């Protein structure tokens, strides 16, 4: 967020939501490290004018906008820029809880072609939560200038999810990106996500916990990831689960036990 007419003066407190009356077919989340051109991609796709600026943390307010591709209407949610999803900060928690509990139909992770390694950390963490991922390697123009070449096909093969190369500032590669998103939500692309394997003791513990987590939450949420979080004693996740599956009978009526109600979690964090 920066100084735009949406963010100055009395409008400063408003979140940017563009909810038309039109029906939305799919919800797409946009994740990525700060300074990867995430907001530029967001603007280029939605035609909205969210402020882009070269400094981390400017997207403090949530933004969402619509775009169309192949006759389908998409709602694009711009998540705060984060380096990881381990919830070291409120931004990370918002992004992570959105991916886990709101279950977007697909997630676009924007990465910086000039520093792939650091950006891949986030991609791998997103893949742990949701398999429906499109990786958007942005700033290809900058990488070219710095004589860095990224093997897009090779990356797609390793990650097992589609990868699109873009230079969003010049509008390059965006059409391919939106087509790929459509392929993913329709399920016409085969996805076989790369999952990080941990050392033996941890994997054993996961194997023991995961089936029980699946019994608890069903197929709705990613049980491997939740198992990992529980093993890590992640208090935020435990709290969220407790709220979703309340302890006592009396509680249920107050908090609403259905997982579907849970998006309220997002508001509670701020």
């Amino acid at each position: 967020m920066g100084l735009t007419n949406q963010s100055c003066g009395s409008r400063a407190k408003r979140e940017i939501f563009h909810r038309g009356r039109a029906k939305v077919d799919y919800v797409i989340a946009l994740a990525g490290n700060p300074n990867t051109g995430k907001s530029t991609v967001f603007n280029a796709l939605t035609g909205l004018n969210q402020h882009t600026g070269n400094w981390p943390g400017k997207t403090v307010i949530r933004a969402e906008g619509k775009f169309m591709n192949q006759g389908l209407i998409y709602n694009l949610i711009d998540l705060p820029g984060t380096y990881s999803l381990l919830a070291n900060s409120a931004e990370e928690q918002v992004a992570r809880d959105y991916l886990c509990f709101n279950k977007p139909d697909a997630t676009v992770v924007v990465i910086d072609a000039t520093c792939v390694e650091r950006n891949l950390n986030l991609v791998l963490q997103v893949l742990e939560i949701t398999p429906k991922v499109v990786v958007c390697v942005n700033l290809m123009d900058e990488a070219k200038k710095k004589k860095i070449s990224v093997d897009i096909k090779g990356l797609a093969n390793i990650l097992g999810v589609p990868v699109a190369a873009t230079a969003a500032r010049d509008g390059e590669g965006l059409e391919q990106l939106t087509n790929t998103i459509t392929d993913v939500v329709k399920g016409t692309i085969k996805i076989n996500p790369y999952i990080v394997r941990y050392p033996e003791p941890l994997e054993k513990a996961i194997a023991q916990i995961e089936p029980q987590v699946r019994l608890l939450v069903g197929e709705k949420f990613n049980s491997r990831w939740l198992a990992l979080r529980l093993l890590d004693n992640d208090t935020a996740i435990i709290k969220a689960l407790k709220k979703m599956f309340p302890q006592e009978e009396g509680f249920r009526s107050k908090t609403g036990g259905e997982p579907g109600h849970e998006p309220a979690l997002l508001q509670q964090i701020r």
Partner: protein
Amino acid sequence: MNQHCSSKLDDILSQTRHLNPQGAININDTIVAGIYNAAEEITNLVVRQQEKPRIDWDRTLDDILTSRVWGFPSMLLLLSAIFWLTITGANYPSELLATGLFWVQDRLTDFCHYLKAPEWVNGLFVEGVYRSLAWVVSVMLPPMAIFFPCFTLLEDMGYLPRVAFNLDRFFKKAGTHGKQALTMSMGFGCNAAGIVACRIIESPRERLIAMLTNNFVPCNGRFPTLIALASLLVLGLGTTFGATFIVVGVVMLGILMTLFVSWLLSKTLLKGIPSSFTLELPPYRKPQVAKIIVRSIFDRTIFVLGRAICMAAPAGAVIWLLANIDLGNHSILIHIANFFNSFGQLIGLDGFILTAFILGLPANEIVLPILIMSYLASGTMLELNSIQALQQLFVVEHGWTWLTAVCMMLFSLLHFPCSTTLWTIWRESASIKWTILAAILPLSIACAVCFIVAQSARLLGLV
């Protein structure tokens, strides 16, 4: 069903504790290490760096712009360059606009006479509403049209995080979060936006401090006032360097005040230890000049001007009414100004200036236009189209000295935030108490500083 599930969750939790008693395996570290190793492996397979560039420009630039020795001087230099450009460049178009707009005012008056409209119609709409609009446009538009593109340029290139980096250690010494430097930078654009940006600060204590001190940096509504007053101060010198120097000085004072009040708060009301954070310096990017100009004009300049106009039109009408409705021997405006006058004199201002600040609560942009309007309404001069005419009005007709201008600049820098900002503080802090403090604290600091400056200047016989 839920009952069944919840006992399950407790089961799982006790099992995880059992599997990892007292955190024997550091799970977090294991996860992070696993992910980092995988990322490194994949990167080695898909990324090729053909040849290392001979000079790493980012590194070289950062060595200068964020060095302990050159960081601050280069920051001051950049800031001065922007203000100098703004002040020098805005002078001529301001005059031109004023001349043009006041010519239109005369034609509007002629038109009113031609229509044989009653005198109050001309007074309320032309001398009240139109004239204050003309003032706002001619005083504010040119500086904004120059300042905003420059500021956006710095932002686009990635300079703002470097400012935060330079200021970080000072904020740490003040007991607050380094990210406050970023929210402070936002405040230069708009304090309300700066307050919202405080969300990037995690700790509630540090966020409150950042919110309470945000208005010590002048927002775009106050810059034109400061620039006009600075130009007034150096009028005889015939150079704009003096004015630049003064404005930069005021900005520096604002930053110092931010640090001082932050330190004060973190030692008293909001005690605590600063939390550490890592600020990544993003790469410098080649700015997209055309986009910057379009964005800063449409997003910022037009918007801020629009807001000022919306506020100035009714304010102009109110001022005209206050100045033209008599109670006893004087107009209401004179009564109000007289009421505040003795206190105003005490802190180097006068009753009209204080009235202007109070009436300007909805938007700082309109403080100077209100002041001019109220002086005009109680004076004889009818047309004002240059800084010389402004000097005539202030100095000759209303007895300003350099001290009045300095005190007004200080008061403008330090006084209470505008009502929009206060509302935003209330929304973000969800507390009436902190919102009131956010108004009272700067106001008392402004009064104290102006009082000290005015009294010591008078004691030393400088005025």
